[in-house]
């Protein structure tokens, strides 16, 4: 029993790191993703090209590689002057990575709203800001709830990638136990993820139901 409590406590401490990384990434990557999506829809061609290239690079390379780059490259380039702490490096890499994915979801959602919705707002004398906030935004939110939910659930599990730059997150702890010959903590760690993702799934399906009050 002591062993169980001890292992539970260690895994929980590890899971705290995962949750911390998850929350910070989520609250930063969503607004950043919105800004990036504006860039990729811009009519100013250079901005659009830069944004598209950025998104291509981030989505086209492994998150693990991005973690390595953010953590190892700055100190190597600056003779050790500039160093990210492990967690800060993970936060930076995760925010950039997820903002790129979110930006594509937002772009898709915004572009899927028919042009007629903007024009209807225009001929009714509404300003661009009013059209976006009063007419377009709600329709975008409805369209993107499912893909955003997907991405958020992926993020929960991706946080364990932080172990590659030696952040003591839950899987790293569980793996350490297995090295000592204890296999069950590995499965036990899965329970934490399952519970967390289960709660998120319920939350998102609740949101989807809420938004189902209208068709279209």
């Amino acid at each position, binding site marked *: 029993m002591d062993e169980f409590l001890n292992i539970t406590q260690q895994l929980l401490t590890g899971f705290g790191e995962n949750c911390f990384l998850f929350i910070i990434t989520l609250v930063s990557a969503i607004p950043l993703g919105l800004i990036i999506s504006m860039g990729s829809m811009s009519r100013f061609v250079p901005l659009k090209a830069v944004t598209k290239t950025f998104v291509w690079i981030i989505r086209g390379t492994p998150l693990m590689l991005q973690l390595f780059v953010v953590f190892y490259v700055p100190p190597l380039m600056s003779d050790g002057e500039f160093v990210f702490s492990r967690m800060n490096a993970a936060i930076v890499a995760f925010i950039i990575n997820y903002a790129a994915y979110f930006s594509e979801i937002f772009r898709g959602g915004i572009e899927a709203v028919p042009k007629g919705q903007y*024009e209807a707002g*225009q*001929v*009714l*004398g509404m300003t661009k800001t009013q059209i976006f906030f*009063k007419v377009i935004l*709600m*329709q975008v939110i409805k369209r993107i709830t499912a893909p955003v939910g997907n991405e958020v659930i992926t993020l929960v599990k991706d946080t364990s990638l932080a172990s590659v730059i030696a952040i003591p997150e839950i899987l790293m702890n569980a793996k350490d136990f297995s090295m000592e010959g204890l296999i069950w903590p590995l499965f036990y760690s899965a329970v934490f993820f399952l519970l967390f993702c289960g709660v998120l799934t319920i939350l998102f399906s609740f949101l989807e139901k809420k938004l189902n*009050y209208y*068709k279209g």
Partner: protein
Amino acid sequence: MSILNVENIQKSFGKNEVLKNISFSLEKGEVLAIIGSSGSGKTTLLRCLNFLETPDKGRIIVNGETLLDADKNTKRNEKEIRRKRLHFGLVFQSFNLFPQYSVISNISLAPLLMAKEQLKNEGEYMGEKTYRAAAEKIRENVLSLLKKVGLSEKKDEYPGNLSGGQQQRVAIARALALDPDVLCFDEPTSALDPELTGEVLNVIRGLKSSDSTMIVVTHEIEFARDVADKIIFMDSGVIAEEGTPQEVIINPKNPRTREFLARFNQNFS
């Protein structure tokens, strides 16, 4: 004085000249029907009037006020355009109702936003000093508009639960809520099942008797003949023929008009 004067409007998309020198005028309370084959520039003309497109040349004058003079390179800021737009209303072929709002909110959204803005800037909206009073006035107006289009009992429905004809009637009420000088219809029945066109056309007929000035782009030749005071037949960007229904539909002079009407008679007889 005419309520609307359109002078020498020209519009090209790239090399494609869609409108070549369009001029016409409209008196208050008149109904103008614009007929013609697809691609003749009818819709583009309406979009120019509603500032969704900017003409390359020409002038648009409403009640003696020049709203647009494409030859003068005046600065066009958003606020000015918004104000000028309000002289016109537009009912789209595909309704374009806001799906997330109930029928009543679809109609009152724009007037409420306008009331808020005017109260802030001028301290008054249609004689009301407070938002609450303005909102009450708007609501009353919206309810009477819904009655006019025969949809009072649908006021709390969402557009997705309405038939096409009902949606288009809501769209008409929405355009009327801002009390435009000229109400434009862009093929208002083209997206509807044949059995639903009648209800929409009847609403437009009803508006004629309440003295609204209207421009209706339509393929409903019979409707145009019965309701319009004036008919324009457009063909590849020019006004090929213009006159009373009697002149244009019953006794067309231009061979293109005859050809077009003959095709219609073939299809619908």
